[in-house]
Structure formats: structure tokens, C-alpha cells
């Protein structure tokens, strides 16, 4: 990732954008933090937040009219937070703080003419910037002194005038502000600021100052326009003028990059979904601390984090997309050292939920797929992340599972049924029933059994994906490029990508047209879970709901559904690269509704079943076969492979009257039974029964194994390819009883089998 790309990614995540209140505040007060501290009763800390950015905080905090309130997100849920009232309360309750320490001396002298609010603020801002400031006025404060004590106590104004002196401002009284005085100061000082309220005569003959720079037609003279009623806008004008003086004396551009001065636009987003309206606690000023804290607690503490709400993955790594983009950029920059973002990169489900909910369409899927592609291209992809899944894909695309046929007795296919390799792996009987129904009602429907290529795509193995796509295309074209009836939403997505131009319809659309199959049975209330691959397929989602309605199922929608549906934890190969998180994601989903689920992706069903949930696949309703299908355990890895093989053999035998054409490999003849503990360990450690049989065959042939003296059990190892498998077993009647299995990827040098 180039730095330019990083910046583009970062710019799409608005979480770190300025919150609306701060952007709307002419002085950019951090009202969010201020409210948080006020709500916590930490008045002194809250005051420090104001004093950090406000000139003369003891004055301004009391005179602020809260322009942020117009931008407050809370305004549509009970009314804007009364930040101005809170400021006034804080000013009276908090301990005053010393003025900020000025920047190092700039050795430039600036005169401020006029000591009304703008003049005092300009003196403050200029002194902070390290200028040597002389304030020339008749009476510091001017009309501020006429305000009622309740609005501005005299002590508050005097305190801040003392602070100005502590900032280094020199006060020089004058009898009147005159053109002669201005000429003298312009001649004597490096720059001059004139307070337009105190010295309106300054504009005679030369017009108002430029709104962007507050510069005038006289070089070195800056001024605030007179008559601004808002105190905080007068302070903002003083800050703008101070910035201009700074630029002027540095000799840099007076106009570039000034968009963020004063009230500015922001892309920050905060949702009001689920926020109950609460009216202001003290709309007419806070009488006491309890009221002030209650009012401050109405602040929503605005955050975007829309994408985190529905995604356990994004929450798990404790950041948000902008942070993740930076981590990925850093990960790619590491030459020697640990690439700590690999796990995060490989845990994204590539499901598109974040993009669907993000106000700026940030796609973690695109970001993480690109990052995976880079890891693969540089040979840095952790081998253990996807290897098992890619082996499974190769198996599903191998001779024992693949089938591409016209219907028996036909030489062509108007349609071809593409159930997908996971449906064949989880519910082979359902696939057989569905294919029989399609042939009975549609006639010449061919069949393709194989993988759609999704695992290679998710693993960013482009070459492998291209090869698989070419083989798939050849088989499909071999059938005469028929219309594809796909039963899996992920397959539909993948096929659309790999077979552009192919006509792909979902099995659900076909059934909506044909009507429900004989024997279909529904009823009851089920929670519907849209698979993530149906996110951008409204027609598909509608077809499924129509079928459910035809089945008299009352389908309850979860919070995240349709376009915002989450992934089940399988997508993007999360459950392979990070099994614990995959299961946690599935558990989250399974537990989010109080009834059985129905879905139309078999991996969603199996993931929820694995996580202890109860879930049906639509085939369970359309082609009912077993008692309590929602309670069916998800088949393990070995069983999934066997199911694919057996489905193919069964269909060849029953539909095409052909015997199985596979020549069994020697290890398949090894008779092995597994204890429950062994089966469980094999599943979590991704050790297949076929791998165990290979170990047993190797031990049998070589006579090499170890003995555990205590139990008399045997232990042997074998490394068929890149993983060494260990099996603890004992001879049984006509084969072996397997007690345990484990594996490692490190290679033992020196002839170990």
C-alpha cells in the first residue's frame, strides 16, 4: 500500500473527524470532552478543557451563546445539550486556572488598539503566539463593565485582565483612539490590530476588513468588523486576525488552508438509532451541580463506529477502520520483525456489512483482500491461515467429488443445477432431493458438483482462483453453457464473477415460479438470517421470504438483516484463520434471537449449529427428511468430505446407473474407529480421518512406532505433505482404535516419517 492509498483509506473513515459541536464552535471547544467531565462531576478538569482553547475563559464561558447547539446531534432527541448553560455553571463552580504559557518570543511587536472584547481577545491570542503585545485603550473591558453582575461578575473580567498581564501584555492607557495614534503605532510596531467596536473610525474611507484575513487596505493593519452581537464570534474574529498577523509577519500566504478556522464543515456521523429522547435538565441555566451533571449526561458522546455495531470482528481488534488501515500499512512496511496485523487481516469475513452501514462506504473487505494479496505476493502469508481450507477446496474440485452431467437420457441441458460444495458436504440428501425435484418439474436439468472457487478468492490466491475458474468454465461450456440454478448465495456471487455472461438464477427464484415441491412443510415462527452473500441481492432475499410465506412461516427479522446482515463467521475464511473468533461470531448471531433460525446458506446453518444454536436450512422445510432438523449437528471436516464423495457415488448409481469409478487408495482400506475424545481433538485441530489412516498405514507398513509403557498404547507419526500428524492408538478387532491425534507444521530433520 502506498502512502497515498493509506491517506485515501483513512479519509473514508469519519470516526476521527471533528465532532459536530466542536466543528460548529467558532473557537473549536471540545464540548464532547467538556460534557463528559461535567457529567462525571469533574468540574476543574472540565474547566481546563474550556480554558485550553478560550481566550479570557472567565469572560467568554459566561458570555457564550452556544452556537454549537444548532449542530448538536442530541437536538433531534429531546433538544440540544445546553452547553452554554453548562459553561456558565462551570465558570462559577470550577477553580480558575492560570493562563497558558506563551510560545517562545517571536521578537515582533504588535499593538492592539481598543480594549472591548475583540481587542482583549486579540491581545490574548497574540501574546500566546509569542508576540510582544501592547494594548492601547481607554478602559480595558469597555462596555463589558456595563453588563449586569449576574451575567459577568466584575471579578471575572478583572481576573482575566490580570491573566493578560501575566501573558505579558503591556497596557498603555490613552485618552482616545485617534487616526494619529493609529499612524504612530503602525510606524512603531510590526503589525497592528484594531478592535472595530472600540475604534469604528478606523474604517472611515477604507471599508470593512477582508472577511477571510481581516486585513485592511493598510499594510500591517488588521481589524475586527464592528457590530458583531455574538461574543464567541468576536473572539473568533480576534483569533482569525491573530493568525493573519502571524502569517503576515512570517511572510507566508494570507489565504491558503484557512478553511478550518472558525465554524467549519465536518463529515462526522453519529446515529440516533436507539437513542431515547430526553429533554434538557435545566433549559434556563443550571441551578446546582446535580442539574448540571444531569444536563451534561445528555451529551451523546458522539462517535460514528457504525461498522462496529454489527461486526464482532471489527470490535475484536479494538480499533476501527481508520486504525486498521494504518496497521495494515505499517504491517506492509515491516522488513525485519513481527507482522502483528496478519491475524486482523485474515480475520475479516469479506462480507461487506461495514460498507453497507458506513456513511462513507468504507470496505474492510476490499482493504483486507488487498492486504492478503500483498502478503501472498511477497510470500508472507502465514501458511496455517488458509491451507486447510484450500486443501478442502482442492478435494471438492477433485475427481472424487466433481460431476458435470446432462440429466440422464438427455444430450443437452436447458439448465444446470449447481448446489455448491458445502451444501453437498452438509446435506447431501437435500441436494439429491432438490435435484430430483428440479428434473421432475423442469426436465433437462444437468448437474454440476464442485466448488465455486470462493475459498481461493478469500485467501487472495489469484492464480489458484483463476485455474479453478477455468476448469469450472470448461465443464460448464462442456454442458453447452446452460442457465445455472444455484442454491448457495456465495456460489451465485462467485459464479457471476467467474462466468461473466452466464445466466444465473437462484434455486429460490425457480421454486417461487414453479411453486413449492410436494411434501414441503413449514409453519411456526422462525428468525430469518440472510447470508452475507445475499446483501446485494434484494430479489434473492424477497424470493426466500415469499417461499417462507408460502410455507406459512412467520419470519421474524433480527436487528441486522437484509442489506446489513452480518456474516456467520465462515466468510472470508475467518473460521479457518481464527477459529475462536469465527465461533464467537456465530454464537453472537445464534443468540441474538429467541427462536430457531432459518437461513438459505448451509454454512450459516452449520456455523450456528456449531456454536450451539438451532438453525434450519431452507431445504429442511422444502424437502423435509429428518425429525428436528434444527437440532442436526454440523458435520465435521471428515464427514463433509465423505458426504461429497458419497453424494457423487449415489447420484451416479441412482440417477445415471453407473458404478463408482474411483480406485480406492491403500490408506482408505485401513480400518479405524475413533474415541469421542479423539474425534473432538481431530475436529478442533483440523486433522482428517484420512490423515490418521495415512499415519496408521505408514506405521503398519514400516513397523515403526513408539510405545507408551504405562498404557501400552502406540504412537506413530507421518508427514504426507506439509503437516506432521501424530496418532495414539491401539490395535482393535480388525483394525485400530484411535485415542488421540495431534499435529505440527515444523519438520523433524533426519528421516522421521
Amino acid at each position, binding site marked *: 500500500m502506498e502512502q497515498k492509498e493509506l491517506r485515501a483509506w483513512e479519509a473514508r473513515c469519519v470516526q476521527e473527524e471533528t465532532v459536530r459541536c466542536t466543528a460548529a464552535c467558532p473557537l473549536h471547544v471540545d464540548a464532547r470532552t467538556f460534557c463528559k467531565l461535567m457529567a462525571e462531576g469533574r468540574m476543574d478538569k472540565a474547566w481546563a478543557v474550556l480554558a485550553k482553547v478560550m481566550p479570557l475563559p472567565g469572560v467568554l464561558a459566561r458570555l457564550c451563546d452556544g452556537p454549537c447547539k444548532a449542530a448538536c446531534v442530541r437536538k433531534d432527541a429531546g433538544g440540544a445539550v445546553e452547553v452554554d448553560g453548562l459553561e456558565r455553571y462551570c465558570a462559577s463552580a470550577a477553580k480558575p486556572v492560570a493562563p497558558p504559557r506563551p510560545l517562545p518570543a517571536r521578537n515582533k511587536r504588535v499593538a492592539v488598539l481598543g480594549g472591548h472584547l475583540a481587542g482583549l481577545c486579540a491581545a490574548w491570542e497574540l501574546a500566546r503566539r509569542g508576540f510582544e503585545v501592547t494594548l492601547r485603550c481607554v478602559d480595558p473591558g469597555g462596555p463589558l463593565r456595563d453588563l449586569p453582575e449576574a451575567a459577568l461578575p466584575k471579578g471575572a473580567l478583572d481576573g482575566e485582565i490580570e491573566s493578560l498581564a501575566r501573558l505579558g501584555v503591556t497596557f498603555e492607557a490613552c485618552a482616545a483612539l485617534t487616526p494619529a495614534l493609529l499612524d504612530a503605532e503602525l510606524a512603531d510596531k510590526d503589525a497592528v490590530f484594531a478592535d472595530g467596536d472600540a475604534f469604528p473610525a478606523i474604517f472611515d474611507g477604507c471599508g470593512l476588513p477582508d472577511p477571510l484575513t481581516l486585513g485592511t487596505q493598510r499594510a500591517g493593519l488588521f481589524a475586527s468588523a464592528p457590530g458583531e452581537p455574538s461574543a464567541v464570534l468576536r473572539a473568533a474574529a480576534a483569533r482569525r486576525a491573530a493568525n493573519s498577523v502571524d502569517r503576515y509577519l512570517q511572510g507566508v500566504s494570507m489565504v491558503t488552508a484557512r478553511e478550518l478556522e472558525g465554524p467549519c464543515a465536518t463529515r462526522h456521523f453519529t446515529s440516533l438509532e436507539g437513542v431515547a429522547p430526553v429533554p434538557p435538565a435545566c433549559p434556563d441555566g443550571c441551578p446546582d451541580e446535580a442539574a448540571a451533571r444531569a444536563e451534561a449526561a445528555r451529551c451523546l458522546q458522539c462517535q460514528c463506529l457504525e461498522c462496529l455495531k454489527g461486526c464482532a470482528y471489527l470490535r475484536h481488534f479494538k480499533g476501527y477502520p481508520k486504525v486498521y488501515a494504518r496497521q495494515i500499512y505499517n504491517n506492509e512496511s515491516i522488513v525485519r520483525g513481527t507482522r502483528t496485523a496478519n491475524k486482523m487481516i485474515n480475520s475479516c469475513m469479506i462480507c461487506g456489512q461495514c460498507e453497507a452501514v458506513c456513511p462513507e462506504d468504507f470496505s474492510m473487505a476490499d482493504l483486507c483482500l488487498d492486504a492478503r494479496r500483498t502478503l501472498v505476493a511477497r510470500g508472507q502469508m*502465514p501458511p496455517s491461515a488458509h491451507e486447510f481450507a484450500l486443501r478442502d477446496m482442492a478435494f471438492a474440485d477433485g475427481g472424487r467429488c466433481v460431476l458435470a452431467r446432462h440429466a440422464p437420457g438427455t444430450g443437452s441441458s436447458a439448465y444446470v443445477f449447481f448446489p455448491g460444495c458445502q451444501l453437498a458436504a452438509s446435506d447431501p440428501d437435500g441436494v439429491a432431493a432438490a435435484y430430483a425435484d428440479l428434473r421432475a418439474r423442469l426436465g433437462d436439468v444437468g448437474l454440476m458438483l464442485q466448488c465455486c472457487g470462493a475459498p481461493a478468492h478469500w485467501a487472495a490466491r489469484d492464480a489458484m482462483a483463476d485455474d479453478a475458474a477455468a476448469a469450472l468454465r470448461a465443464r460448464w461450456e462442456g454442458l453447452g453453457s446452460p442457465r445455472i440454478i444455484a442454491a448457495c448465495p456465495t456460489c451465485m456471487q462467485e459464479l457471476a464473477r467467474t462466468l461473466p455472461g452466464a445466466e444465473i438464477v437462484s434455486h429460490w427464484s425457480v421454486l417461487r415460479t414453479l411453486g413449492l415441491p410436494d411434501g414441503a412443510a413449514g409453519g411456526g415462527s422462525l428468525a430469518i438470517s440472510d447470508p452475507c452473500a445475499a446483501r446485494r441481492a434484494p430479489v434473492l432475499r424477497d424470493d426466500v421470504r415469499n417461499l417462507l410465506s408460502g410455507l406459512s412461516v412467520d419470519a421474524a427479522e433480527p436487528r441486522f438483516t437484509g442489506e446489513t446482515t452480518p456474516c456467520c463467521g465462515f466468510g472470508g475464511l475467518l473460521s479457518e484463520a481464527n477459529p475462536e473468533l469465527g465461533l464467537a461470531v456465530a454464537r453472537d448471531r445464534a443468540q441474538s434471537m429467541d427462536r430457531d433460525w432459518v437461513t438459505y446458506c448451509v454454512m450459516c446453518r452449520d456455523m450456528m449449529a456449531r456454536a450451539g444454536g438451532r438453525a434450519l436450512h431452507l431445504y429442511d422445510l422444502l424437502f423435509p427428511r429428518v425429525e428436528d432438523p434444527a437440532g442436526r449437528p454440523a458435520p465435521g471436516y471428515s464427514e463433509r468430505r465423505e458426504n461429497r464423495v458419497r453424494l457423487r457415488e449415489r447420484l451416479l448409481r441412482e440417477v445415471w446407473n453407473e458404478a463408482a469409478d474411483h480406485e480406492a487408495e491403500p490408506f482408505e482400506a485401513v480400518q479405524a474407529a475413533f474415541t469421542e475424545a479423539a474425534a473432538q481433538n481431530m475436529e478442533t485441530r483440523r486433522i482428517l480421518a484420512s490423515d490418521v489412516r495415512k499415519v496408521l498405514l505408514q506405521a503398519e507398513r514400516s513397523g515403526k512406532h*513408539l*510405545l507408551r509403557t504405562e498404557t501400552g498404547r502406540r504412537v506413530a507419526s507421518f508427514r504426507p505433505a506439509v503437516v*506432521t500428524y501424530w496418532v495414539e492408538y491401539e490395535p482393535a478387532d480388525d483394525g485400530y482404535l484411535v485415542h488421540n491425534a495431534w499435529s*505440527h507444521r*515444523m519438520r*523433524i530433520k*533426519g528421516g522421521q516419517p
Partner: protein
Amino acid sequence: MSLIKLPELDGAGWTCASCDEPLVPMARELEYLDSKFTVELPTCPKCGYVLIPEEIAIGKMFRAEQLMEDK
């Protein structure tokens, strides 16, 4: 290359079935990706058959593999 010792693994309670020899700790070389280590592992002194016990495979060894995959 320094020798990594795993004192908890002394090979006690294990024999090589084909050689009928008790396993003894011996230095063996392991490799993964671009890294090599010499580790003392229970080994048949006669034929060199090594034991990687379950707790090592799923514990220290697994963690080392994960670390090397991110290097």
C-alpha cells in the same frame, strides 16, 4: 546454533517398538519456514525415531510456528 532443552521431556515411559529401546533425550534439528532449531527431544538411540508429545506440539511448538509465520 544453541541447543534448546525441554527438561520436562526426558523420554521416560516411552520405548521404540521396533528397536525395543527406551527413548533418551537427544539433540534433533527442527525446521519451519526459514528457521532452524536444535532441540533436545526423546529419541530412539538406535533408529533415531523422535517423539513430539501432544503437549509440546499444541503448546510451545504451535506458538513458535505462529510467531515464525508472522516474521
